[in-house]
Structures are given as structure tokens and as C-alpha cells.
């Protein structure tokens, strides 16, 4: 291995290192072999020792040994939990005194793995210069970060076990990398530099601001070429960096439009917690122009992807040509320990794309919206009349019904919603509260010659040309006197039920949007966000909701089915109206924003706004006019699990077989992207392929999926038509969405570029049938599409129809989701904006948009009344997306309490259960989740809700309607009762602290925080409640009983036990019994199971082998089961049967 080390600002350090021989340590071939062992101190406690075997090296320093516990086999993603949890450990050595062939064993402090760590943990060790630069010593079998994978800590039952890796399992620096599978084709354009071929004697690496780097030609990671340039670097701070310089400037062809740098990064952009040792580098191209000026051209995004990808930057047209490249710079090297990245090539790309593009995709054949009224809220208060009258200087739009009288008064003054004043009166005509305004500071916005105007007229008045009343529609024409560019637009108003419908239109492409302004009403008016009604544009997505002003609720909707806008905004827009400062000035209705297409033109303005006022909040919630999922009957019984990768097929299959042995089989198993690539999201493309991870192969994956299907599971594969990886076979720059400036969009996710929505439809239609046929799957996990709102994924390419409109993205994603379902049979997606696609897929992970989702109140109405009838959503997404971190879990009372809250929320919102991988008291909590919730799912999934009530914690047993609960604030306690048309009643105490005593079928239940009780037809009963002051989980549904007394001995219906157990009726005279986890006593009530003495008990091990058969006497009607470590299940039958 050859290394070139040229250190710029770190020259002094390098010289010092060289003088004392340290540089030799780092440059010498690895000479230390590392082997680890572990002493098991407790079920989850280990003490690690590492033996270093010196193979003949001499060391100038006493290096410090370290152990890292990593989430990932390959990347550096450390656990850093407080002691005694897994965290980096260090121990001093006397390596300067190590003789050849000497063996040294280093012991580390004990480590306890908390139950929240449910995945395998990778143990990596190394030696580093703790007293000096922090550099890591090369070791035999090391990975690019100079650490050696010595073992894994794997879950085993309730505990963990250490499994040593063979010395060769780590990735050595002598390894030859696996080229991404599609890079066997020619490069689209000939590169200016192939870094694997450069002459290292002539190229230089310069350190900057304390940064240093060493370069070497290597085959560790292979991209297009037969070798790449490996760069090992370190620094002192964010200014530290290094520049890779060619011996002479590299000419940039005059026709080149962009620079593409192929690189293999080393940091994970999506990691939430990052240390200074794992920085995201900034990358810059150094260019010299024709006049000799040097320019730094930064790539738009940081190096945030740990596999091969291409960073792209557009070359500025203004710089005098010809240009020449004088270096590639990296900065932000805060890491003191060396890290490595790899470069493959620089391409100065012409990016010659055709002047026209076409698509065969039709978007006019979609089955939604099912009504021309769009999201118009429902009118629920019986008969009513609407009329519109012209008064002296105003028009009045009337609603009169049994519940009251509503007037919208429109005075055409400034041509916006500012002209509308609203008043509500009771049925006797008495005004309630003061009149309010629905859109203060609203109006059209425009951009003329780079100057922005509006929404207030300010210095440029707007005048009403015509105003007339036609067929109960007020039609007005306006002229906006912008400098040298008067703009005309129309504004029309009508009323339907309690909703004011405002339509605005113009052919003027200078209009850049229409601002909805803000509400101005009672000083104590407040915005009430509803979980799952999320636009994703403000306040972490808690931006869909209604205003409560006085006694009435007000909603404002931008009709997303009719809009021609590019995007929507809410809450963060500036206002030039002083009244925006007042309390009660609330942004609540999305504004429309029109951005230029790639041809510089904007789409003509077409918007419809719907404002609704009612004392009943349900009447203000938007409808979702979509056809419901046709899969309710088929999918309602399924619970959900997301996870799995090709590298763990055998382990995963064993886990599912074990769950199946407990009777768990109705699981929609959503495998993640790691089924398509050798590593999660890496090495290969992880979507837009029909081939499984190369390291495993299609056949093995098919066998695995078939095995799962054979057990009754519904395993599906990952799909995603939003992200295109440059290493993918489908990679094509002209498939990437364009910006309003006409440029190719930058990465939308580390290592991925945003696929044009229309191309997404085409590619989905291509791949879906192939994947279904190849792998025999009957559903899909179509990630991302419902996680983003349509306005988050835009293509401004004017060569394609619908450019610059979020409606195009909306319809494209809907079309491909519908085709996923049509092709595979079912489709679930990621969720959080899934309400926009309700029914157009079967369901999504029910992510709540919030920085602390577990704190969001169980205000279930929008989800249950509008989304729930259309689809079946899963859990609260994954546990880590609901209870985001240890602090959140601590707030709830630990991870078991977090699991309880997760399940309680799942039930309150009527979602399907979702597995969490957690274990408590010796068994996997998913088994409990399955038996507590799954039997209820067919009674509520997509079933109509007949009632929602909230407990008023200050008023005893009093239950409130949603409207009153919002008015009083009682809904914040999250104590909610939901009834379904099946007869199921769900009562959930979502309070974080308070208890709630409820009566269910005449029986009182003491619900602790996150407790629930559900009663339904056929004596269905499922609860998590306090019994004798201790929490108990119990379910009785059909032929299944489940209990968990959480370690305290309790007598409960069919059970007397101190642990958890499942009972299933196998036939009329036989019951199966599965004890779970730490259980020392298990008695069952023979009479309750309709078994008659004498009883025969057969004990089986997990393999189904009969261990023994005994005749068991009854004691007070109870039969005691002979528990033992080898017993997996029992069969109890009447002996004469």
C-alpha cells in the first residue's frame, strides 16, 4: 500500500510525528491482531476483554485501547449511553514495550445493555494516540476507520450474549470493494479525472487550518474505475480541511454545465445525534477563470452519505471561460481521529438534454375527488337555507338553520379576504360574540421585474371594476395598479351550508400567489391543531386545525384538488397589517404560492378557498373525498412490523418462526430498503431495482418470503419512487426534478436525487409487476410518498405537463399508490401527510407531526372521522417516532410505560397495532400487543365511528362533546371514549399523569396513565388497568385469552399467575397454554374454560416435542401447570376427551 502524506497547516505536527517515529506507526502495515472475549456478569451485563497480539511491530507510543459499541457493522454510529450503558470505553496500554509476538490482554469496565437496545450491537476495538493527535493505529482486519469488528452483542431471550467475530470478518484495508452492481456500463460522460489513475507522486494534498490528510490509491471501494483515491484525514475544528490538487490545472470544457464528483463518504446524514468525530464535510471545487481569478465553488450539500454517490454543482455562467480546476477541497474536519473517504472521478458534464420531453402518463383518470365540492366540510345540523343579498355597499351571504344564523358580509374594497366580515347569531338571531374577519392581510401577490408586491395593496391600489350577483354567486373583477404592469384578477364568493367559497383566478403569470392572511377575532381566539391534519409547512407540521373564537370554530382550507399553486405556506409569512400583532391574529388557512417554471413563467392563478364557521367543530373539519380502501376486510386483522434486511434473513426467519409458535401470524411485515442493497441504504441502489441485495441474491430472498407467507404472515418488500441513487441502473439526470431556475434539483436525501413525479409513475408501472412476479409478494411498503406533502416534491421542468404545480405531484403519487395496490394487492406507506392520500392506499405508519409526539393530546376527531373511514393506519408509526428518545421515555416512566402509551394511542386513534421489538420481564412485548389489540381490529379498522366523547377531569364522570372539550380545554387530558358501529367501545386514558376511573358494561375500571378498556360484541374485553393497585393486561376475545400481571401474583378470571400467558382454545375439549417470560406461577380455571376433571396436561418444548403428560388435580377449581425452563407450551384437556 502506498501512501502520500503532505500536510499543510499541520506540517509541524507531521514533522513532530515523523521525528518521534509516530508517522512510522501509522504508515507501517498493520501488525496487531485483536481478539475479544466477554464475561457474562448478568443477563444484560458483560465485561469485555481484548487481547492484542503483536505480530512483530514496534511502537513509538503507548497507545490507548478502546472499545466502541456501534449500531452498524460498517459505519461509525456509536452508542453513547451513560454508564453502565454501552458507551466508548478506553484503557491504557504500554505498547511501547510490546515485544514481537507479545500478547496483551486489556479489560474494560462492565457494560449493561438496557432493554431498549433490542438490536444486535457491533463491538469494535482499536488503539489510538490519546496523549497526542488522537490518531488510530492500523490494525489487522481493520475497517476504513481503523477499527476492528471483534464481535456482536446479540439479544438472547431477555438478556444479551456476546458472539465473537472471526478475525477475517472485519473489513480489512486489503479488501477489494464491491462495485455497485449497475456500474458495469460506460460512464455517461467521460470524466476529466479518474482518481484511481492519478500519479500520486505529482498530486498534492494540502492541509488547511489544522487539517491534514493522507492519500493512497486503493481498491477498498470501487466505483467506475479499478481503483479509487483513499483519503484519510483529521482536523482540529470546523475550519480545518484539506485540498486535493492536481499537478496542473484540469481544463474544464467550455460547453460543460456542471461538475459531478463521484465520492464515497463516511458520515450518515440522517443520524440525529452527531459528535465532532463524525462530521459532515463541506466539499468545494476550486476553479480558475480565464482572467486568472480563483473561485471556490461549493457543492450544495455536505458529504453526508457513506457509500458511492455523486455530488453535483452547476458551473456559474458568469465566470470568464475557459475554466480550469485547481483542486477539490474538503472542510469541516472536526474529527481528531482519522476518518477515510474515497474519490472516484470528476466529470465536467455537458448535460445536454433534449428540448422536449413527453410522457404517456395520464392524470385525468383518477378516482378522486369523488365530489366537485372538494374538501368542503359536512353540514350536520339538519335543514338550512342559504341566500345572497346585495345591500347598499355590500353583499351578504346568509346561512339560516336550526343551530343559528351566519352571515358573511362582503364589502368590495381591496379585492381580498380583508373585505369579508363574519357574524354568528344563535337561533333567535342574537349575536354571539363580536364579528370577526377571516383573512386580514390577505390578497394576491406578484413579482414584476424582480420586485415583489402584495398581499396588501400598500402604495399600489386595487380597484373593483365590476361587481355583480349572478345565480347566488358574487362575481367581482379587480385591477391592481402595479408599476407599468396592471394586473387583472377575478374574485367570486358563494355560500354552501356554513361554508364561504372564495374563488380567485387570473391569466396574469406575474401573480406569484394569493395570501390567505390571518384570522382576527376574539382576543382569546386560539388555533387548535388536530393530529394528522398536517400540511408540513409550519410548527413541525402541527399546522392543520381550526380557530376557536368565542363559541364558534372557524376553518380555512385551500382546495388542494383545484389549486394550480406550487406550494402552500402558513404562519411564517410577513404581514403589513398592524392587526397581525394582536392576540387572536392567527394564521390558519394555507396561502398559495406560485413559483416560476423552468421556462421562467408562472402558471396562471387558480385557487378556491373554503371557510367554514360553526359552533360544532366537526362541521369545520375538511372532508377527504376519496374512495375508501377496498381491502378493509382483508387487511383489518393484520398488525404491522417494519424492519428487516437481506443480511439477516436467517435470523429474521427464526424470529418470525418463534412468534408464529406463539400464535402470532397476522403480521404485515414491511421489509426495509436493506433487502435491495447489501447495507441499509447503501452499497447498491436501494430502490428502483427488481434484484435483491447481491450478497444474498433473489432466490434466497424469495425462499425467505415464501417461508413467511407459508406461516400466514403478509411479507412485503420496500418500494420508493421519490429517490433516485446515482449508482442505480435507472440513474439519468433528465429524470431528476428541476428547480424553478431550471437547474437539476439537489439531493433530497443523502445520496439520492428527487425523481420527477411523472417519471415515478412510469417507473412504478415498470417495476411493480416485475417485483411481484419475482418475489411473490402480495403487498408493498411504498415508503416516503405519504410522508411528504405534494408541495414538498416539485418538478418545475416546463418540458413536461403540469410543471410547477403541486397538483401534478399529488396526482402522480396517488396514481402510483393506486397501481401498487392494484399490482401487489395491498400498499402501505410512511405517513405523516397520509391524510392527503387517505383511501388511495391502504394505510400508512401513523406518524404524528410534532417534535414530541407522545405529548400531543389524543384529539382523535379528524383522524377517526375523516381518515379512518378511508384506510387503516398503523400504530403511531414506529415507537421511536412516537417516543423519540430516552428523555421522552423517562417522562412517561420508562420504556415499558412508553410501550403502554404507544399502544394506548394506537387504540385511541383506531389504528392497527405495530410491533416495537421491546422486551420486558423475559418476553417480547409484541406478543402482548398482538393479543391485546389484534382481536379488536376487525371491530374498528375502517369501521364507522358513532361517538367520540372526552372526559372532563374537573367534573367527575361528565363526558363532553369534542366541541365542548375544546372550549373547556378538557381534551388536553386525552381521556377519550370512542364507539364504533360494531358495538365496540374504546376508552383510553392518554393522560401522562392522571388516572381515570371508567365504567365499562357496568364494571368499574381504574385506568392508570396509558390505560384502556375496550368492550365489544361477543363479550370481547381487552384492558390495561389497575387491579388491586397493580397494572394488569388482559384480553378475552373468542377463543383467545391473554394475561400479564406484570410480576405480581393476581387471581384474574381464567388465570392465577404472577406473569404472562396465552390461552387458546384448540377444540371443544382442549386448550393450548403458552407461558411467557418470567413466570413462576400459572394456574388456570378449568371451569371457566369448560374443562372437566380429571384433566390431562401435556407439556411440549419449542420444537413441538412432547416432554411429559401428567394428570393434574384441581385445587379450588384451578389446575396448576408444571412450569419449567424447557416447557414452551401446554395442552390441557379433559382427560376423558
Amino acid at each position, binding site marked *: 500500500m502506498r501512501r502520500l502524506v503532505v500536510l499543510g497547516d499541520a506540517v509541524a505536527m507531521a514533522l513532530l510525528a515523523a521525528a518521534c517515529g509516530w508517522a512510522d506507526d501509522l504508515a507501517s502495515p498493520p501488525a496487531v491482531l485483536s481478539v475479544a472475549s466477554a464475561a457474562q456478569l448478568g443477563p444484560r451485563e458483560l465485561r469485555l476483554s481484548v487481547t492484542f497480539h503483536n505480530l512483530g511491530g514496534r511502537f513509538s507510543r503507548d497507545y490507548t485501547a478502546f472499545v466502541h459499541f456501534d449500531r452498524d457493522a460498517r459505519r461509525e454510529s456509536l452508542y453513547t449511553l451513560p454508564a453502565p450503558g454501552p458507551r466508548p470505553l478506553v484503557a491504557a496500554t504500554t505498547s511501547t514495550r510490546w515485544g514481537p509476538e507479545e500478547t496483551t490482554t486489556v479489560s474494560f469496565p462492565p457494560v449493561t445493555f438496557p432493554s431498549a437496545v433490542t438490536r444486535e450491537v457491533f463491538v469494535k476495538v482499536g488503539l489510538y494516540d490519546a496523549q497526542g493527535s488522537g490518531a488510530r493505529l492500523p490494525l489487522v482486519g481493520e475497517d476504513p476507520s481503523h477499527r476492528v469488528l471483534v464481535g456482536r452483542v446479540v439479544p438472547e431471550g431477555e438478556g444479551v450474549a456476546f458472539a465473537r467475530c472471526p478475525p477475517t470478518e472485519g473489513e480489512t484495508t486489503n479488501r477489494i470493494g464491491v462495485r455497485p452492481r449497475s456500474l458495469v456500463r460506460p460512464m455517461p460522460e467521460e470524466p476529466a479525472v479518474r482518481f484511481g489513475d492519478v500519479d500520486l507522486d505529482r498530486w498534492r494534498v494540502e492541509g488547511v487550518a489544522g487539517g491534514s490528510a493522507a492519500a493512497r490509491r486503493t481498491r477498498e471501494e470501487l466505483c467506475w474505475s479499478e481503483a479509487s483515491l483513499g483519503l484519510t484525514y483529521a482536523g482540529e475544528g470546523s475550519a480545518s480541511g484539506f485540498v486535493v490538487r492536481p499537478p496542473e490545472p484540469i481544463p474544464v470544457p467550455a460547453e460543460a454545465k456542471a461538475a459531478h464528483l463521484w465520492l464515497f463518504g463516511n458520515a450518515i446524514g440522517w443520524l440525529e445525534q452527531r459528535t465532532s468525530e463524525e462530521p459532515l464535510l463541506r466539499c468545494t471545487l476550486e476553479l480558475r477563470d480565464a482572467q486568472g481569478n480563483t473561485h471556490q465553488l461549493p457543492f450544495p450539500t455536505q458529504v453526508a452519505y457513506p457509500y458511492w454517490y455523486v455530488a453535483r454543482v452547476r458551473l456559474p455562467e458568469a465566470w470568464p471561460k475557459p475554466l480550469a480546476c485547481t483542486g477539490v477541497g474538503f472542510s469541516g474536519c472536526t474529527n481528531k481521529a482519522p476518518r477515510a473517504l474515497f474519490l472516484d472521478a470528476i466529470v465536467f458534464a455537458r448535460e445536454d438534454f433534449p428540448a422536449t420531453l413527453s410522457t404517456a402518463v395520464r392524470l385525468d383518470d383518477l378516482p378522486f375527488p369523488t365530489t366537485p365540492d372538494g374538501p368542503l366540510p359536512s353540514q350536520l345540523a339538519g335543514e338550512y337555507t342559504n341566500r345572497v343579498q346585495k345591500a347598499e355597499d355590500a353583499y351578504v351571504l346568509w346561512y339560516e338553520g336550526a343551530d343559528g344564523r351566519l352571515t358573511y358580509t362582503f364589502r368590495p374594497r381591496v379585492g381580498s379576504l380583508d373585505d369579508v366580515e363574519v357574524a354568528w347569531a344563535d337561533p333567535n338571531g342574537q349575536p354571539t360574540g363580536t364579528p370577526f374577519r377571516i383573512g386580514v392581510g390577505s390578497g394576491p401577490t406578484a413579482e414584476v421585474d424582480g420586485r415583489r408586491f402584495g398581499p396588501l*395593496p*400598500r402604495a399600489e391600489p386595487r380597484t373593483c371594476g365590476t361587481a355583480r350577483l349572478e345565480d347566488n354567486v358574487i362575481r367581482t373583477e379587480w385591477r391592481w395598479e402595479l408599476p407599468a404592469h396592471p394586473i387583472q384578477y377575478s374574485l367570486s364568493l358563494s355560500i354552501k351550508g356554513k361554508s364561504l367559497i372564495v374563488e380567485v383566478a387570473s391569466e396574469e403569470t406575474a401573480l406569484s400567489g394569493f395570501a390567505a392572511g390571518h384570522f382576527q377575532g376574539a382576543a382569546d381566539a386560539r388555533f387548535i391543531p388536530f393530529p394528522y391534519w398536517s400540511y408540513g409547512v409550519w*410548527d413541525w407540521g402541527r399546522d392543520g386545525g381550526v380557530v376557536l373564537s368565542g363559541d364558534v370554530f372557524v376553518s380555512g382550507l385551500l382546495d388542494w384538488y383545484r389549486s394550480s399553486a406550487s406550494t402552500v405556506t402558513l404562519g411564517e409569512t*410577513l*404581514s*403589513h397589517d*398592524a392587526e397581525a*400583532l394582536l*392576540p387572536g391574529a392567527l*394564521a390558519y388557512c394555507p396561502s398559495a404560492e406560485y413559483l416560476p417554471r423552468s421556462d421562467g413563467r408562472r402558471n396562471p392563478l387558480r385557487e378556491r378557498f373554503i371557510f367554514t364557521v360553526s359552533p360544532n367543530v366537526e362541521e369545520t373539519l375538511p372532508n377527504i373525498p376519496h374512495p375508501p380502501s377496498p381491502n378493509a376486510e382483508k387487511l383489518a386483522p393484520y398488525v404491522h412490523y417494519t424492519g428487516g434486511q437481506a443480511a439477516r434473513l436467517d435470523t429474521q426467519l427464526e424470529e418470525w418462526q418463534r412468534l408464529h409458535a406463539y400464535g402470532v401470524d397476522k403480521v404485515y411485515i414491511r421489509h426495509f430498503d436493506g433487502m435491495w442493497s447489501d447495507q441499509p441504504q447503501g452499497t447498491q441502489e436501494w430502490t428502483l431495482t427488481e434484484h435483491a441485495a447481491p450478497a444474498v441474491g433473489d432466490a434466497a430472498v424469495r425462499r425467505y418470503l415464501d417461508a413467511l407467507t407459508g406461516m400466514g404472515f403478509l411479507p412485503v418488500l420496500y418500494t420508493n419512487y421519490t429517490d433516485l441513487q446515482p449508482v442505480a441502473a435507472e440513474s439519468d439526470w433528465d429524470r431528476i426534478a428541476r428547480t424553478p431556475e431550471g437547474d437539476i434539483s439537489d439531493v433530497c436525501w443523502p445520496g439520492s436525487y428527487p425523481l420527477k413525479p411523472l417519471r415515478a409513475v412510469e417507473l412504478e408501472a415498470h417495476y411493480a409487476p416485475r417485483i411481484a412476479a419475482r418475489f411473490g409478494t402480495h403487498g408493498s411498503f411504498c415508503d416516503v410518498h405519504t410522508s411528504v406533502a405534494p408541495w414538498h416534491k416539485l418538478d418545475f421542468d416546463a418540458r413536461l405537463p403540469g410543471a410547477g404545480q403541486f397538483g401534478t405531484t399529488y396526482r402522480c403519487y396517488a396514481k402510483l399508490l393506486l397501481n401498487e395496490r392494484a399490482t401487489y394487492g395491498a400498499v402501505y406507506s410512511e405517513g405523516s401527510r397520509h391524510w392527503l392520500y387517505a383511501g388511495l392506499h391502504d394505510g400508512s405508519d401513523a406518524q404524528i407531526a410534532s417534535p414530541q409526539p407522545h405529548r400531543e393530546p389524543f384529539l382523535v376527531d379528524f383522524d377517526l372521522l375523516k381518515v379512518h373511514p378511508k384506510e387503516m393506519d398503523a400504530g403511531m408509526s414506529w415507537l421511536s417516532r412516537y417516543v423519540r428518545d430516552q428523555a421522552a421515555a423517562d417522562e412517561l416512566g420508562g420504556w415499558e410505560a412508553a410501550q403502554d402509551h404507544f399502544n394506548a394511542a394506537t387504540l385511541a386513534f383506531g389504528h392497527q397495532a405495530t410491533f416495537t421489538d421491546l422486551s420486558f420481564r423475559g418476553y417480547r412485548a409484541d406478543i402482548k400487543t398482538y393479543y391485546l389489540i389484534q382481536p379488536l381490529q376487525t371491530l374498528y379498522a375502517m369501521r364507522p365511528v358513532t361517538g367520540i366523547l372526552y372526559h372532563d377531569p374537573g367534573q367527575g364522570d361528565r363526558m363532553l362533546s369534542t366541541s365542548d372539550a375544546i372550549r373547556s380545554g378538557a381534551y388536553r387530558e386525552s381521556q377519550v371514549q370512542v364507539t364504533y358501529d360494531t358495538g365496540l367501545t374504546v376508552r383510553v386514558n392518554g393522560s401522562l399523569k392522571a388516572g381515570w376511573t371508567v365504567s365499562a358494561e357496568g364494571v368499574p375500571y381504574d385506568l392508570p396513565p396509558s390505560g384502556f378498556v375496550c368492550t365489544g360484541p361477543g363479550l370481547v374485553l381487552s384492558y390495561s388497568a389497575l387491579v388491586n393497585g397493580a397494572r394488569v393486561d388482559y384480553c378475552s376475545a373468542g377463543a383467545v385469552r391473554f394475561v400479564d400481571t406484570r410480576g405480581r401474583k393476581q387471581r384474574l378470571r381464567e388465570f392465577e399467575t404472577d406473569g404472562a400467558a396465552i390461552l387458546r382454545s384448540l377444540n371443544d375439549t382442549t386448550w393450548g397454554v403458552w407461558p411467557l417470560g418470567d413466570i413462576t406461577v400459572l394456574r388456570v380455571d378449568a371451569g371457566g374454560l369448560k374443562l372437566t376433571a380429571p384433566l390431562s396436561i401435556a407439556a411440549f418444548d419449542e420444537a413441538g416435542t412432547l416432554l411429559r403428560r401428567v394428570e393434574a388435580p384441581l385445587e379450588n377449581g384451578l389446575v396448576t401447570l408444571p412450569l419449567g425452563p424447557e416447557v414452551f407450551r401446554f395442552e390441557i384437556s379433559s382427560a376423558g376427551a
Partner: protein
Amino acid sequence: MRWLGAAAVLVLSVATPVLSQSAEQPLVFVTITGGVVAPETVSLKMLILNAGHEFKADTSARLEFVLPGPEGKVYEGAARGPRTVTVPVASPKWSRDHIEIVSLGEFVLDEHAPKDLLLRGGLADQPPVELGTLSRGDAVAGLRLVRAFPVAVSTQNKRRIVVAAACEFVDDRRFVVKLLYLNCGERLEPDYDAFLHFELAPTGEDLPKTSALGLWPSAAPTDSSTWGQSEVTVARFGPYQLPPNAPEFIYLRAGLYDRAGDGKRLPLAGPDDTDRALVGRLASREGATWFERANVSGTSPEGKP
């Protein structure tokens, strides 16, 4: 002032300090705002920001039009023309951080009206102040309102931009801050970004401390290059999460900076040494948190210049 939590009642009964209690610094800031609603018609409002004053009795907002000249003669026009207006306000009900916007009505300035009129007024129980200038204009430039530079603010400031804030709690721990930028006759070239900083001390700059509490510096683009000379601009920030165990005081500083240009802050009326205006502070005590608005006066929280 929005009170939080059950303990709020207890705190309500004790003195709630305001940022400045100096007798020289008026605790009620009054300015004029409005818009041209027709070629010869202007609609005027009075914007009143309370910064801790407690009113014992009702008062009224008063506006009068004054002819230019040393006499300061009040002008009374025709029925719809410039005329003295008095509007009662229920000031005893005002909270210590109350905002009142009083509609003064519409005023027609036809060819019979003087070309220029001074606007003068304020709360009736306080000395009247100069509020602005109204120019009738001509065929080229129409009606024009120019806000007067507030007398309370040091005239040493070169820039005539005044910043004030409002704060609203959206639930028990989250709050929104609205920044009011009042232009008093300034013309700005770039589109500055409005920014809001949180500080733990009334002077100096130490943003990492509040960032560590999750109160990150915030900024939002404005269209300041198009601001008229009496422009009112409200920028909304947040919601922010009040940190657990919040310190007794969290100071809010605001300003404008040239994000797209050299990044420099624009010196504002009443800035401190960091070119930021102190607009108020969050005070937390005994489980309750409330907002105390700073005087629009260019003084430090303790009333020192």
C-alpha cells in the same frame, strides 16, 4: 399578558416588574398607522403598545390635524375631511402588555384640504405627541403618510426603524413571538432579514447559552426594500418551547440583518451595543411565565440609556 398554570393567580397578586420604570420613559407607546383606501382617502388607526402601565380610569385616543407652522393651529376640515377625533378606550382592562389598535376612521383630503398636515395626539390623559405627517400629494404622488420618529427614542440613532414585540402562549409551554417593525420615514436598499435572539442577560451577546436551552436564534426574510415610509411589518416567529426549569428572565432582542449581503446588522432605533433592540423579556416565577414588553425607548431593561 397571557398567564400560565394554576400558580399564575398567586403571581398575579405580587408586583410584576416591567423592564423600565423610569419616570422619563413613557410606558405606553403610541403611533399612527393606516392605509390609502381611495385616491383621496386615508384610513387611520392608532397603535398603542402598553409596557407595564396600569390605568386607573377609562381614557380615550385622540387625533388632531395641525397646520404646519410655529402656531401649531389645529385644522378642522369638512365632515369627511381631516378633523379632530376622540375614541374612548377601556384602558383599565388592559393588561401590562396590552396592544390596542383604535380605528380613527377615514379622512378625505380633497383639493380643499391643506397640502400637508401634521398628525398629533395620543392618549387623552397623556401629553400629545407628534405622530406623523399626511401629505395630500398630487397627480404623480398621491396621499402619503409618514410616521414621526417617536419622541421617546433617542434621536442619536441614524436609522428610523423601531422594533417592538408581542408574545402569545399557544399552550402551557409553547409561545409565539411577533415582531413589529415600524418604519418612521426610512428607505432601505436590501431586503433585510428580521431576526429574534434570546439572551439570558440584558446586555452583551451570548447566544450559545439560550441555544442550549432550545431557544435558537431565528430569522425570516422581509421585503424591506419595498417598505413605505410609514410601513408596518409584522414577522411571526415560533412557536418556541419554554425550556424546563426556565431561568427567571429570558431577554428577547430583535433586529434586521443583511443575510444575502455582508451579513451586518442594521443599526436600529434604540439598539444596544450589538445592534439589536431589546423588545422584552419572559419572566418565570413560581410556575408561571409571562411576557414583559420593553419600552420602545432605546433604554436597557433597567431604564439606563
